[in-house]
């Protein structure tokens, strides 16, 4: 082994030498370095966009100006307050209380009490069926009224960004949140759904055997995605969990490259145009979804509601329980007779077909699709949305996704939309460290994570934690 352990008995003197620290080795200076580094990074992050002519442009503006000095001074000040403020405060003004607690406690304590009470009350209320139904009715009513309060632009956002991504997130939540599998190729199924729509409505260069109404494409797309999901999942789900991530990523790229390169079938990078809209033509009913986004909004909340009801049933059924079991302890689950591969595959396929449904909706709303609508980036985006909302918690996922899909549109006049992925990346890291359970966590998930932290269990379907358990 590398380090000698037993063959020398440390004397008291050597031990003392080892223990003694130079002044600069005090952890507080480490914290100073960390804080300043974070400040410099933030300065760079918030600087101007780079320029095509000058590589140094952005760095010059952010690091070569007074800005960075302000940032560093701010960081040092913050560090000083955190390091010295607390002891000073404790010494002179009151022991064992943070400097701000004196001001916050009178506010937070009653609030905490009230929220606890309210929580208990709502928990009681939630058991009453009528209250639940009434609450859902109110929410759906508000959602129906929502487009009337917004401009056309925001209605477009509501449909193109919020609704479509919420559909996707609901599906991915089954895979990531419930079955504990990381699927990085989720948008590939979205693409399959979209291209199915293009094909079956006769918009592709290759004509289908018969044309279908966009509504009828939904079951066809679901079946196609289900099949694709099974074909991809069956061999790979037997492997370790992180391999699934990479295989799905590879699968996504293959689908993307096929869409891009199979010109004869998909029209290549030029994309497919003139995909037909949703429409109902049965007897006296003759209705088409056209340019106006609002009818699409109604259609999509309809689809989402059906899916939510179905998935909630699933979560509280034997299937949902089996997923939880697999996530927590695959070995015990399988010894208890749970066919783990079958249930993982089921989750994977259910997720895939939901993605397919979203693809149909997207294609027939946009009426134009090209490979660029299905970048790997979007797969990662959905993963980020699901995690932000709280994987495993359906409501968390929906609200988190809606928020994150809306935010960049809202912020786009202040923050360059191109920077979105930078912030999302940082958000993912921070979430994983501080709040892995997400914004509105699922109860089960939260428990699992705290148990994993204590070294008692696992919280995904990927066996041991990386690097072994730390003790």
């Amino acid at each position: 082994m590398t380090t000698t352990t037993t063959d020398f008995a440390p004397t008291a003197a050597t031990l003392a030498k080892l223990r003694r620290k130079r002044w600069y080795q005090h952890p507080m200076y480490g914290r100073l370095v960390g804080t300043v580094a974070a400040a410099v990074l933030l300065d760079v992050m918030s600087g101007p966009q780079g320029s095509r002519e000058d590589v140094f442009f952005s760095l010059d503006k952010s690091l070569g100006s007074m800005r960075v000095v302000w940032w560093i001074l701010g960081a040092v000040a913050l560090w000083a307050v955190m390091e010295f403020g607390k002891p000073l405060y404790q010494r002179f003004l009151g022991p064992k209380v943070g400097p701000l607690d004196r001001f916050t406690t009178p506010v937070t304590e009653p609030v905490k009490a009230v929220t606890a009470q309210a929580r208990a009350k709502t928990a009681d209320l939630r058991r009453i069926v009528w209250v639940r139904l009434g609450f859902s009715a109110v929410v759906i009513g508000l959602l129906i009224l929502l487009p009337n309060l917004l401009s056309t632009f925001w209605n477009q956002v509501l449909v193109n960004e919020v609704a479509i991504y919420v559909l996707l997130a609901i599906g991915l939540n089954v895979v990531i949140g419930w079955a504990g599998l990381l699927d990085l190729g989720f948008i590939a199924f979205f693409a399959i759904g979209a291209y199915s729509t293009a094909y079956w409505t006769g918009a592709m260069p290759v004509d289908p055997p018969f044309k279908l109404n966009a509504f009828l494409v939904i079951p066809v797309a679901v079946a196609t995605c289900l099949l694709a999901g099974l074909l991809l999942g069956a061999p790979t789900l037997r492997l370790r969990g992180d391999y699934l991530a990479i295989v799905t990523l590879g699968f996504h790229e293959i689908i993307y490259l096929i869409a891009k390169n199979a010109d004869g079938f998909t029209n290549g990078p030029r994309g497919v145009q003139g995909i037909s809209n949703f429409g109902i033509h049965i007897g006296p009913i003759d209705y088409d979804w056209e340019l106006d986004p609002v009818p699409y909004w109604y259609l999509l909340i309809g689809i989402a509601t059906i899916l939510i009801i179905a998935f909630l049933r699933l979560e509280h059924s034997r299937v949902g329980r089996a997923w939880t079991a697999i996530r927590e302890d695959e070995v015990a689950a399988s010894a208890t007779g749970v066919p783990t591969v079958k249930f993982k595959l089921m989750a994977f396929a259910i997720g895939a077909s939901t993605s397919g449904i979203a693809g149909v909706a997207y294609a027939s709303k946009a009426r134009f699709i090209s490979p660029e609508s299905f970048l790997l980036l979007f797969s990662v985006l959905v993963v980020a949305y699901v995690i932000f909302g709280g994987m495993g918690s359906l409501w968390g996922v929906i609200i988190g996704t809606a928020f994150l899909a809306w935010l960049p549109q809202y912020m786009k006049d202040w923050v360059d939309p191109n920077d979105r992925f930078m912030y999302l990346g940082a958000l993912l890291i921070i979430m994983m460290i501080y709040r892995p359970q997400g914004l509105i966590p699922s109860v089960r998930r939260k428990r699992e994570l705290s148990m994993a932290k204590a070294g008692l269990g696992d919280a995904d379907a990927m066996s041991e934690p990386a690097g072994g358990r730390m003790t």
Partner: protein
Amino acid sequence: MRAPNFFYKGLGFAVLKRRVIKIALPIAAAALVLSACGSDDDGDKKKDGGSTAPGNSGGGNKPTWTIGFQAGLSGENAQLGINEENGARLAVEQANAKGDLPFTLKFKTSDDEASETKSVSAAQKLIDDSNVVAVIGPAFSGPTKAASPNYAKAKLATVSPSATNPSLTNPENNFTAFLRGAPNDNAQGGGMAKYLSKKLQVKKVFVVDDKTEYGVGLSKVAKDELTKAGVQVVSDSVPKATPDYGPISTKIKNSGADAMIYAGYYQDGAPFAKKLKEAGFNGPKFSGDGTNDAQFVSLAGDAANDWFLTCPCADANVEAATKQFTDDYKKRFNTNPSTYSAESFDIANLVIDQMKSFGAEKITREGMLTKLKGASYKGLTKTFKFKQNGEFDGATTFIYQVKGGKIGYMGDIDQLVGG
């Protein structure tokens, strides 16, 4: 057996790190807020609307109308869009400054990132603004194809300075609001073929396209025209944004072709040029207006030398008619006008001209569309007239060649070949 404690002195650092991050987090939060407030300095001002136009304030009770502009202003190949944006913006600012307009003119840009997908929502942004009476753009053929059905439905006229794919004006598409402000690729492809077969008298040409609407269209015309002229043609497609042009360069070298044509944009043209040079291909190399930009030369370096670049656009810096424009442009944007700047300036003036002809009447989108279709306007670069299907009336192609790191203007192909 347990490890002695001091082997875990690293653990002290572990605690430290956690604390560091705990401190860093509030800063991160603050930064998010700050960056939300603070990022609209510098370059962004240029992007947001026409509020910078000098003559804008004295509007009084004049109505305000907006000219929309759609192109790729960020992302890959954005330079062409920016060239056009500047040209059009200059026209709007000058018109406002003159002060003789019966209305206040605004300029609203919408960035489609040169992407088909983004194009639909970029167009929607302009359609949803009822003040927009006409749109200049979209710049590229792909985005034009994606957005045109919606423009047609909204009856909002779009005049593109540079979407040159021939199929856009195909009546089957029903792009009824699309007008092309430049000769299409038939002219460019034909020009290349003519120059190669007549002037350079090559026997075999390798044509590569980038699989975009523009590239495929241009290469198809070039191939047809070359075949017609009795030249042997070999072709291949390399999708846009391919990192490595090594293998295709080797293939071209090994094919024994005398010359090659690349139908694509400068972002890919540049690395292609480099790899062609490395592979040792020395024949004449051609590309179209998508590559005709200074960025091509600056990215490709030495390898860009001797490339022939065609364009339906004349060089504003050289032609006498555009002298005044070039000076104004330089003053306003601190850089020389480049490909399509002058054309875009002309088209903006064409649109303003038609708007003026409404006089005191309320300007409607439909009215604008009809007027534009029937317009005939003599701009700095050429005379703008449209055929029934929105096609540009006329076909002149100019040719340039890269020499010593500069795109040198050679002139009208027809004149160079000698009729």
